[in-house]
């Protein structure tokens, strides 16, 4: 093992070479090589070809739809996700544990099932749709429908990021604020919420990243009208069905770049929060 130099610290436990070797091989075969193939294929078009495909009006419109709806959905999720995390951590009420478990439903429910179920509810003849249709409001087959599907799949990210931080937060800090004369509202707005900011930001970024890439739950309710309610992942599928592999690869590369940027931002938030306040999220 001399060749490794100081690559790893000595240990009496066996199996380092075997497990790390397997991990890296498996990771390379399943993840790394295929993603490299994607990036290579998109660069196959050359610089001009790449940007021509990326800046195609329909592509831009689909990216705008995806990002805008994901942004709104993540915003709504931050508000209600924080509220739900608060209610679940701080209050005791009948059925609390069931609701707590239900938060993870979007993680467990296959996206296609969620997609057709949401469509059934919000279609003009659906359970909710029939009440708003007379008001001239259409939910399914519009960007509002897309947003609703994205709220569904993003909610647990926000709740589950904030919940552990709230559980850890000591009551003493709130008591300290009260002894210093702060009203309950001041304590919440100036002490509690700011201390949750890193977790809220992380939850927002996670929900947003998931919503941007979401496919299964969105396509049923979206209506998929080009330039109006066509999301970027769907356009990738359409390009594939047209056997325009390079075009699909270009959209995918753009989205991938943006998700990596998000991942980077999330890590940055956590590192910053840990360094300054001494806790991550």
């Amino acid at each position, binding site marked *: 093992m001399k060749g490794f130099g100081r690559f*790893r*610290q000595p*240990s009496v*436990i*066996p*199996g*380092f070479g075997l497990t*790390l070797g397997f*991990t890296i091989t*498996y*990771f390379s075969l399943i*993840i790394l090589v295929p993603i490299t*193939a*994607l990036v290579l*294929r998109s660069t196959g078009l050359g610089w001009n070809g790449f940007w021509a495909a990326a800046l195609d009006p329909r592509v831009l419109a689909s990216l705008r739809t995806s990002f805008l709806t994901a942004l709104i959905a993540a915003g709504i999720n931050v508000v209600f996700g924080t*509220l739900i995390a608060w*209610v679940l951590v701080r209050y005791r009420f009948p059925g609390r544990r069931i*609701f*707590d*478990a*239900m938060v*993870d439903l979007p*993680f*467990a*429910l*296959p*996206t*296609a*099932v969620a997609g*057709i*179920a949401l469509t*059934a*509810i919000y279609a003009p003849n*659906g359970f909710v749709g029939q009440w708003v249709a007379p008001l001239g409001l259409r939910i399914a087959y519009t960007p509002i429908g897309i947003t609703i599907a994205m*709220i*569904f799949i993003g909610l647990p990210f926000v709740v*589950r990021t904030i*919940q*552990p931080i709230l559980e850890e937060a000591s009551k003493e800090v*709130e*008591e300290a604020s009260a002894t210093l004369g702060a009203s309950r509202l001041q304590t919440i707005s100036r002490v509690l919420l700011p201390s949750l900011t890193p977790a809220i930001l992380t939850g927002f970024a996670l929900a947003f990243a998931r919503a*941007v*890439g*979401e*496919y*299964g739950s969105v396509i*049923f309710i979206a209506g998929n009208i080009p330039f109006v309610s066509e999301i970027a*992942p769907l356009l*990738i*599928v359409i390009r*594939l069905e047209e*056997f325009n*592999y390079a075009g*699909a*690869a270009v959209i*995918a590369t753009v989205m991938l770049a943006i*998700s*990596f940027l998000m*991942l980077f931002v999330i*890590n940055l938030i956590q590192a910053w929060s840990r360094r300054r306040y001494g806790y991550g999220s």
Partner: protein
Amino acid sequence: MAARPHAARRASPTNEPLWVRWALILAGLVFMALFLVLPLLAVFSEALRQGIGAYVQSLQSPDALSAIRLTLLVAAIAVPLNVVFGIAASWAIAKFEFKGKAFLITLIDLPFSVSPVISGLVYVLLFGTGSVLGPWLKSYGIEILFAVPGIVLATIFVTFPFVARELIPLMQDQGTGDEEAALSLGASGWQTFWRVTLPNIKWGLLYGVLLCNARAMGEFGAVAVVSGKIRGQTTTMPLQVEMFYNEYQGTAAFALASLLALLALVTLVLKSALEWRFGDELAATGRGH
């Protein structure tokens, strides 16, 4: 609740007045009911709309049955492979100190930040027409794309991190003391793993398998891209749901969907049971995916 005259008169300094509490609880629950519970109920009510007979019958159609078989097959291959990977990765990461460890942990989470459609697309580009690998394998009679191997690969991709991300923090928490003790008592490396490490992580492992399996059986986007949707051959349950739905076979679509919803509910129940019963033997991360 015990009657406490003074407490009732004025809220404690770290609590909200009763009406505020109930208003917040109500707002949270209504939101959850609207966005989480309602879709779940819709699945079952739509599935049973034509009565139980039609429901049972639609589940016995050849298409539905073959989709169920394929989904079970895919999960039976993908989940064990990711379990082996998860254990290997967490062993290497939790029991040793080496350079680039933090980076490796970030990499393992990568599939979570990739759109499922892209997870499928990468295999289309790797094995499809115009690639190097695809035609070469085809000349030996091996079909990857629009066949079961492609579906398995795409499923492995999207479920890749589940077991590892559950085991890594858990094994890091547990440290290396137990293993060092076992080794000092003369146990071999494998004995140490089977008799010391595995019993320590069994609940965490089960938790990871549960989540991994739910996603493997329910994956839609990635599988949709690679499957080619050949009726009776490459349609998994979620794909068959989509097919039925697009063919206006509402009852059939929702009936099959109700099986997946049941799977989700069972997963949630088992997951919560594990959290309540063995919470301290699971990783501290409350965040599933």
